[in-house]
């Protein structure tokens, strides 16, 4: 099958393999970028939650004005 595709496209087997590897890199990169953004969002979410908790505790400790 691959040999047939290689023949059809006019690529040497080495070129075809390289072409496919770069397609994999491309797809991987696109998803890694978006995954990195999701990780960044999750880290920020944790930071915001702990900050809001800290401020609430600070207000509770001070009691009513």
């Amino acid at each position, binding site marked *: 099958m691959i040999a047939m595709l290689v023949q*059809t496209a006019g690529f040497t087997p080495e070129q075809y393999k390289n072409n496919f590897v*770069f397609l994999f890199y*491309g797809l991987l990169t*696109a998803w890694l970028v*978006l995954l990195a*953004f*999701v990780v960044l*969002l999750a880290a920020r979410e944790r930071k915001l*939650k702990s900050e809001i908790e800290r401020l609430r505790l600070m207000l509770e400790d001070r009691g009513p*004005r």
Partner: protein
Amino acid sequence: MRDKTIMVLSLLAAVMFAGNLAIILLVLPDEVSQGPIFRIIFFHVPVAWTAFVLFFAAMISSILFLVRKDFKYDSFAAAATEVGLAFGAANLLTGMIWGRIIWGIWWTWDARLTSMLVGWIIYAGYVMLRRAIEEPTERARMSAVVSILAFADVPIIFWSIKWWRTQHPQPVVYGGGFLSPGYWYMLFLNWIPILLLGVVLLLLRMRQEQTGREIDALRREVHAF
């Protein structure tokens, strides 16, 4: 309610994307002159469209903030810009990987590539500006102005391949380039889960902006003591 929406949209995007990926890798034939790497177009182009839609939404929201002075528009613009930047980065990087195989180089200072990079840097500047200004009203007003001005680059990116002679392929959507119907259909079909993912990330980021505003309010209360 919002959590449920996020969950449903994420699942829908994941299912659609899995189906699309199977078609892209196993069903669609190789493009004659480019080989397998051509398939990168099904990600490279939809992530760019998603980024442009988000930048457009950010600009509209920024105008609405300046007119109505409602901070929910500022939150939306900030969230849309940040998510748009992530999609813009994915677009630039997938384009570079495609260029390495087809052109033999990672990068060229061609009008399309350069205008996209400039746009990305301007929007990154928007995010940095927001971090630099502490006062919420001033921050919202300044970043709204930057967002409106930054959008001026988007039509330049879009039309650059028509206006100047570029190494980047001609547009397949609004004339010049050719795409066979099977590829054309897949391009739009794969835009749906990518756009859905954009909406999910936007909702998540907006929730954080909302929490950020709550923190600002709590800080004011703490300092009022």
